[in-house]
């Protein structure tokens, strides 16, 4: 039986041969890593793969390739992203060929040891948190599905890290966040890896007025992360890229999860479920809760 790798390469080769696409956005592996790659019809496809280290949310590269006919590998994370982008009229869906795959769940890179033995394990404790919550491991709404469909285990409930932080009393929570924020070097990888942070100019780059000081420090950093979370309120699809890419290990996505969970319970709302759902902050109900207003 063909491996997913072989099937994928054959499928992409066909897409190029049939002149369906100009670029293919996928993952290749080399030098011990799996990483995103932009492939053309002249590319050697032998590196193309899909494995348990295919972390990146490929939808983050759509702005770079806007206007081209594009094939891309979509796992559940990308599908949800495309839905939000469609709702926000940021997507040229007719130019995309969505290649679906059975997603075996990504292994949390912080739990990988040097020999990467964990890649073969099926212990959900080793997965990224989002994968434990995943509702469907076979890409829905794919134009083309590659590989054998697999079953999806019952999704885990809750947000363990968020709940752990929340269990602390307010003062401890403040101290904990201050400590996390004092680690932040504001490399902005969380913003740039995020497929939904697509603004041409981010507020952090504004200087008339300059909203944010350039120096790093717990307060500046916290303000950056809070505003980013607000800008993703009701939009974040919980791909956890922001946390994964953080070089100093701040669980950035906890802030996003605060709002995801709150919006789900308050407004019965989950972002990225369909391409029609309007993001929560550009919608309202007349009877939204306002018990906090004087």
């Amino acid at each position: 039986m063909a491996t997913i790798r072989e099937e994928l390469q054959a499928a992409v080769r066909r897409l190029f041969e049939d002149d369906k696409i100009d670029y293919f956005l996928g993952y290749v592996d080399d030098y011990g890593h799996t990483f995103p790659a932009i492939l053309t019809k002249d590319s050697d496809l032998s590196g193309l793969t899909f494995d348990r280290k295919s972390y990146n949310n490929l939808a983050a590269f759509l702005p770079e390739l806007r206007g081209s006919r594009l094939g891309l590998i979509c796992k559940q994370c990308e599908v949800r992203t495309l839905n939000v982008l469609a709702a926000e009229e940021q997507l040229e869906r007719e130019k995309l060929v969505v290649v679906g795959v059975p997603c075996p769940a990504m292994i949390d890179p912080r739990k990988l040891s040097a020999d990467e033995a964990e890649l073969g394990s099926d212990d959900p404790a080793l997965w990224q948190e989002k994968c434990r919550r995943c509702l469907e491991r076979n890409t829905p709404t794919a134009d083309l599905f590659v590989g054998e469909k697999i079953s999806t285990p019952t999704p885990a409930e809750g947000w363990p890290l968020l709940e752990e932080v929340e269990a602390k009393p307010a003062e401890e929570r403040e101290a904990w966040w201050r400590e996390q924020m004092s680690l932040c070097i504001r490399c902005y990888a969380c913003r740039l890896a995020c497929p939904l942070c697509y603004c041409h100019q981010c507020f952090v780059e504004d200087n008339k007025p300059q909203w944010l000081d350039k120096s790093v420090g717990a307060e500046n950093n916290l303000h950056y992360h809070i505003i980013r979370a607000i800008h993703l309120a009701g939009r974040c699809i919980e791909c956890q890229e922001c946390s994964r890419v953080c070089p100093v290990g701040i669980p950035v996505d906890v802030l996003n999860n605060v709002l995801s969970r709150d919006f789900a319970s308050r407004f019965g709302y989950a972002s990225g479920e369909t391409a029609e759902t309007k993001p929560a902050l550009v919608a309202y109900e007349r009877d939204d809760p306002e018990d906090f207003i004087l």
Partner: protein
Amino acid sequence: MSDPPVPNESTPAPAWEPNIVGFLCNWCSYAGADLAGTSRIPYACNVRIIRVPCSGRVDPLMILRAFREGADGVLVSGCHPGDCHYIEGNYYARRKFIALKQLLDHVGVDPRRLRFSWVSASEGRKWAEVVETVTRELLEIGPYRYDRDGDD
């Protein structure tokens, strides 16, 4: 780096008065505050008012910037639901405030530091009461000082 002051100090120095930045919508709350003044209703003088076209205009960035610039509390006030001059600005604002409030609560900022109110143009008395409440609460919880450890 010095130790951060305890934020919940219950007995602030008597000389200390909270700085409150108020973002007031032009059509209702600003007129309401004006009415409180012309009606000579006495209330705490701790609020520095910034007039904005609509509570929907208030970007969370402005609120955080106010804290960063030394505010101890921020008060945002707009028209009652249904009364917005722009029909629905305050409905959008309400959701935005929910989000910001959730986040600030989560990171341990005392929820009493960021308050929202609906005050109409005829509610001079309500405005005075809101300011009194907010000021009193801030006097209880003391100054806002986030540890500025960014220096070298």
